[in-house]
Each structure stands twice: as C-alpha cells, then as structure tokens.
C-alpha cells in the first residue's frame, strides 16, 4: 500500500516538475523565436508585399467585428455611465467617462482580445496547418527560410494592424457614446465634447493607449506565430495550438494591461 502511495506521489511530482520545466523551456524557445523573427525581419520587410497581404488578413478583415463591438461598447458605456453620474448630478461629465475609459483601457484591451480571437487564432491555425502538411519543411528544402517568408510577415502584419484597430475601436466607441448620450438621452452636445476635451490629454492618455495597443499587438502576434510554429503536426495539435493562442493571448493582454496601467497612470500626477 505504502509503496503504491509513494509511487503515486512521485508520479505526481514528476508530472508537476515536467509541466514546470516544459513551460519554462517553451518560454525560452519563444524568446529565442522573437529574436529570430527580429533577425529575419529586414529580409521579410524588403518584400513588403507579403506584410501588406497579412495586414489585409489580420487588419482589414477584422474591421467589421472591431467597429461593431466598439460602437456597442461605447453605447452601453454611455447608458450605464449616465445612470450612475445622474445620481451625483454630474451627467455632463459623461463625455470624459466614455472617452477616458475607451482611450485608456477598453479600446486597447477589447480590441486586443477581439484581435487575438479573430486574427491570432487564424494565424496559428494557418501556420500550424502549413507545418502539418510539411509546407514549412518543403520551403526549407527549396532554400526559402520560412521565418522570413511566412512567420515574420504575419508577425509584422499583426503588429501594424493592432494599434490602428484599437484606435478605430476607441473612435467608434466614442461615437457610440455620443449617439446614446447626446442623441438618445439628450445631454448637451457642447458639454459632451467640451468636457471630453478638457478631461482627456493627448499626453498621457491617448499616447499611452496607443503604446498599450502596440504592446498588445506585439504580444498577440508573437504568441500566435509561435503557437503555430510550435504546434504538434497533427490535426489535434493544430486545434490545441489555436485554443492556446486565444487563451494565452487573452491572459497576456490582461496581465500586461495591469502592469502598464500601474506604470502609466499611478495616481498623483492625474
């Protein structure tokens, strides 16, 4: 009995240790992978047409979901914000509430989450399938480096698209907030925009939002191409990798957002 229990405990410990070393070595591989992408980037960016194609797939095709979500998030924010602000008789501050929440937090974060599930998963599935069908190996046989030809353009396509998508999300959110706040509820037009202008600063609010979205773009794109490249070359492996991309990207976005918010907006200065 006791030897059985001992075997169970060692088995558990072995699996725990395996999981820890496995994830740490994956982290190391991912870092090495980022350096490799950076190393191959000049070569990839020289053929910029490849990156433009990826901007089309990652950015342009994500526009509909990003714009619609932005519009609805802004509208809901406006409705809920109004209900709360009304109690303090501060309903004219609605413009600040909507604009600051969108520009600082919701724009980059929501756009990042949507981008991870819309474009990141597609990138992972595509690269994973290329690996499964041995297209990447075939490229290497033809002396074409898949890092420069496949990985780097997708990475840069994501990095370029993400800040633009986040900015569009925020802009459409503010427009949605305007529609509900001014057109539907009837807050004064001038107060809405005027308070917004007085309360939102280009530096630090808008620029920090753009920095955030750029960081999210790098994180999501790296996770997406890495998971695709690292996927087990089976149908199941590709599906697992796609799921992992969405889960890890979402967690990375939320964690990075917290860390960056602490550094960017920690009290006092505001």
């Amino acid at each position, binding site marked *: 009995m006791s030897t059985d229990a001992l075997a169970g405990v060692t088995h558990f410990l072995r699996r725990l240790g395996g999981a820890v070393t496995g994830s740490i070595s994956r982290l190391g591989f991912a870092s090495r992978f980022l350096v490799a992408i950076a190393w191959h980037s000049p070569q990839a960016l020289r053929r910029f047409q490849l990156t433009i194609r990826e901007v089309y797939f990652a950015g342009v095709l994500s526009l509909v979901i990003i714009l619609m979500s932005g519009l609805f998030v802004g509208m809901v924010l406006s409705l809920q914000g109004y209900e709360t602000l009304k109690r303090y008789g501060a309903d004219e501050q609605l413009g600040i509430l909507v604009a600051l929440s969108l520009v600082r937090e919701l724009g980059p974060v929501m756009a990042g989450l949507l981008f991870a599930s819309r474009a990141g998963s597609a990138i992972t599935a595509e690269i994973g399938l290329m690996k499964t069908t041995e297209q990447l190996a075939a490229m290497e046989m033809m002396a074409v480096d898949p890092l420069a030809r496949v990985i780097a353009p997708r990475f840069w396509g994501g990095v370029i698209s993400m*800040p633009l998508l986040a900015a569009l999300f*925020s802009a459409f959110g503010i427009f949605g907030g305007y529609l509900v706040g001014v057109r539907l509820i009837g807050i004064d037009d001038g107060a809405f925009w005027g308070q917004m202008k007085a309360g939102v600063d280009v*530096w630090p609010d808008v620029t920090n939002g753009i920095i955030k979205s750029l960081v999210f773009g790098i994180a999501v794109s790296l996770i997406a191409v890495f998971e695709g490249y690292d996927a087990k070359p089976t149908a199941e492996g590709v599906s697992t990798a796609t799921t992992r991309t969405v889960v890890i990207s979402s967690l990375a976005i939320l964690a990075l957002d917290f860390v960056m918010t602490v550094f960017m907006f920690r009290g006092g*200065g505001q």
Partner: protein
Amino acid sequence: MNRSAIDLWVGVFVAVGFGAILFMALKVGNLLTLDRASGYRIEANFDNIGGLKLRAPVKAAGVVIGRVEAVRLNPKTYEALVTLRVDNQYSFSRDTIASINTSGLLGEVFVALDAGGDSVMLKDGERITKTQSAVVIEKLISQFLFDKAAEGGGGSKK
C-alpha cells in the same frame, strides 16, 4: 483576391486608422487648445492648497488660460509653492490675486486669477504675492457648529 485590391483595402485601412488616431488627438484630446510647452510660468504661495492637483486648470473670469505645473512645499515657511503655466497671449498685472476655488460642491479644484490694476505685468518666473487659500469645508462646518453651540449656550443661560 488580387494584389491591387489588397493594396487598396490595406491603404484604406491604414488611412482610416490614422484618421481615428488624429480624431482622438484633435477632437477628443486637446492637442491644439492648450500646448503644454508654450506659455510662461508664474509662482504663487498658498497657506493651504486644499485638493489642488497637478494639471488643474488656471482660470481667469472662468476661462481656462493655463495649467498647474508643479506643487511643492516651501520647507522654510511651510507654505505651498504652486507653479502655474499661463498661455503667452495673456498677461497679468503684478497685483493679480490668485485664489483656489472649487467649481460646485464636488467639482474640480482650480486656480482663479483676478487681474489687478497695476500697469507692471508679471514676467516669466515672477511670484504672485496676493493669494487666497483654498476653503476647507470641514473647517467651515466646524466653525459654523461652534458658533451655533456658543449661541445656543448663551440662550440657555438667560
């Protein structure tokens, strides 16, 4: 999809994206209305700045003409030293009164400048001598209560 169509769509996407950033900078933010770097500095001493924060507006006759740039404590006099950055197009006389006001009961705290009649104008780095501190509502209330209590005490003795 052929190459030129992709180019066109990506071009539209990038243009609209930069348009959104521009929209946030100009329409949502205040890139043009008040440039941080421009303007000149005025200093003012206050006994108590209340809830005055950095980047709070500086107003004259209710119009925003600048921002609070720095708030420090003078270690010798134990007074608050507030640095104001005022837009270049406005100049204030040397006997201007600076006071710390609150817009409404819960509104933002700002510095109000009331221009005086002196013909000599304040220059960059000079100090406003006439200041009025923030009104601390708790003090006002306790003063009011003490007054009331004193009145009430006087009434019962009679």
